[in-house]
């Protein structure tokens, strides 16, 4: 219940903040009202700028703000609403020029005035952000490099926009209105300092080291970490942390991984890491004793959040890691609730956690259904994809009362989600982990 209250609280505060500039602009003295299109365009510019500012709060990983929704959802929201903000900001100069074509002069970076140049710089930075974020892979921009540019361009966009407002702003015509806008912009840039300087500085005291690296089937490794001179980390099963494999915590090279181990063990934690990108290949070569920093726990994909009489876990490939955390935690807690595990994998050879799951079956009310995409002739189990027919065959009789957790490749999650709804499972009982945190 407190989670609901705090969720509603942050949304309410968000709405106030988002529409605050419109209110602030109406506090006297206000300039004489101009035509509808000019005032509309100015308002679009202001609400767009406020949205820009809000992005810095969204990405700052404040646990108190993100906990009610889950940081994955917050980042998904960040990607979408930032596009809305960019559209609003782009509409601002376009409407102004159409309304009074003489303003075309202002779009020339070598003409115009300082206010228009600052505005142009902000718009250019925003367009660059949009293009590099939407087409990062097509542009062959590496993740770390993209991250750095994202940061630099984001700060450029908000600072330039603020300069534009201060210089051009008919609506910032008093000292205190100026102060409110500039103060907000400074605060937002300060959040970047918090995320990239202060937070890493704090992580320095919470070092971890690699205790062990175990190779598992399916090009996957279990990375086991131990705390160095601290008690460890308290997390909920299914959550994740950003992991930095570096001598110093001041690096942009960090990647999110789900905990794969029991939440009851704070001082020996495990991550499942599949060799896919540069970073995961580097991890595969890491030596015991290597230094690691963690930012976490984050995420809302957890059995502890949703009271249920029983569960159905549906994992595909490396998407099984949070399920392993669920199962290990339930085993450690002697949790008697029934679990059906649907485990999808490319082939039987690639089943990473086959053995571990078999061990856990002895400690839990666990039924496992392996679903290899391809299997030899003599395999008498399920095969292919998890579809409505398979669910209909395998889901237990109390299916309507169970809680569903799905994690895997995006296409699989979409298909399973639709198939579950087709089986009459309520949307509110299906939790998805969309692991797209870039």
């Amino acid at each position: 219940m407190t989670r609901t209250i705090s969720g509603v609280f942050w949304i309410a505060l968000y709405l106030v903040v988002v529409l605050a500039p419109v209110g602030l602009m109406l506090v006297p003295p206000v300039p004489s009202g101009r035509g509808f299109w000019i005032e509309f365009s100015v308002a679009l510019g202001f609400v767009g700028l406020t949205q820009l500012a809000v992005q810095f709060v969204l990405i700052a990983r404040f646990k108190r703000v993100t906990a009610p929704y889950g940081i994955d959802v917050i980042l998904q929201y960040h990607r979408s609403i930032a596009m809305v903000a960019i559209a609003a900001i782009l509409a601002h100069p376009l409407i102004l020029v159409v309304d009074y074509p003489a303003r075309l002069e202002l779009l020339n970076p070598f003409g115009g005035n300082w206010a228009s140049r600052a505005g142009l710089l902000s718009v250019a930075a925003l367009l660059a952000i949009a293009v590099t974020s939407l087409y990062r892979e097509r542009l062959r921009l590496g993740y770390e490099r993209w991250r750095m540019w994202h940061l630099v361009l984001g700060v450029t966009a908000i600072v330039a926009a603020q300069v534009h407002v201060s210089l051009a702003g008919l609506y910032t015509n008093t000292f205190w209105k100026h102060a409110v806008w500039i103060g907000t912009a400074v605060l937002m840039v300060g959040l970047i300092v918090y995320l990239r300087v202060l937070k890493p500085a704090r992580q320095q005291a919470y070092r971890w080291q690699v205790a062990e690296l175990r190779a598992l089937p399916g090009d996957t490794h279990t990375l086991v970490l131990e705390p160095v001179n601290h008690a460890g980390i308290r997390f909920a099963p299914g959550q994740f942390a950003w992991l930095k494999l570096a001598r110093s915590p001041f690096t942009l090279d960090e990647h999110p991984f789900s905990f794969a181990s029991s939440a009851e063990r704070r001082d020996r934690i495990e991550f499942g890491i599949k060799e896919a990108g540069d970073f995961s290949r580097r991890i595969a070569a890491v030596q015991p004793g290597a230094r690691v920093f963690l930012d976490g726990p984050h995420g809302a994909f957890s059995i502890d959040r949703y009271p249920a009489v029983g569960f159905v876990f549906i994992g595909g490939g490396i998407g099984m890691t949070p399920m392993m955390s669920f199962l290990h935690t339930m085993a450690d807690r002697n949790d008697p609730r029934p679990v059906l595990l649907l485990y999808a994998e490319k082939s039987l050879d690639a089943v990473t956690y086959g053995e571990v799951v078999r061990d856990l079956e002895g400690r839990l009310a666990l039924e496992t259904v392996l679903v290899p995409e391809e299997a030899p002739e003599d395999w008498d189990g399920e095969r292919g994809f998890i579809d409505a027919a398979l669910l209909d065959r395998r889901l237990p009789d109390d299916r309507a009362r169970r809680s569903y957790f799905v994690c895997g490749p995006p296409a699989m999650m979409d298909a399973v989600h639709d198939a579950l709804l087709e089986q009459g499972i309520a949307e509110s009982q299906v939790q998805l982990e969309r692991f797209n945190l870039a």
Partner: protein
Amino acid sequence: MRHVIAHTAVYVIATLLVGGAAAFGTVRSRQLVIVDEAMLLSRHEPATAHEFEWGDLGAYGYARNCANCHSPDGTGWDQYPPLRPIAVTFPAEAARAYLIDLHLYGLSSARWRAPMPRMHHVTDAELAAILNHVVVRFGGADAAGDRLFQPADIAARRGQGIGPRDVDRRRPAP
């Protein structure tokens, strides 16, 4: 479930933002926000020539519509011309018309890299008061002179259907 809610939130917030901006545009363009008594009077009780009290209204109108670019004391900066030298040219008939027109229709010229926006939304009374404020307080014109601008002077020059470049062509030689 959470993702569905987040998607919905994007559409709701986007609608609120555009709706809020449109509401703001409507409120402002219809002059629904009453800002002070002087404004109200200037809109609803047009004064006759001899009793036009422009003093406070001029200072206030200049502060909220002009000062941000031309600076509070009219010194100008960047692409915003200083108003003192312009103010002294005003007594000639052509210069008076030019000063009014550049406010009503804007001004775009090769002399500056940024255009003067149209200020045609400012009422006759407020615009006359602002012009008087500029020519008297910045240009040193006689504060009691009978050549000061009257609201009727502004009204007479509205509706010419000209653009910012036309205004520049009509600019009297300095």
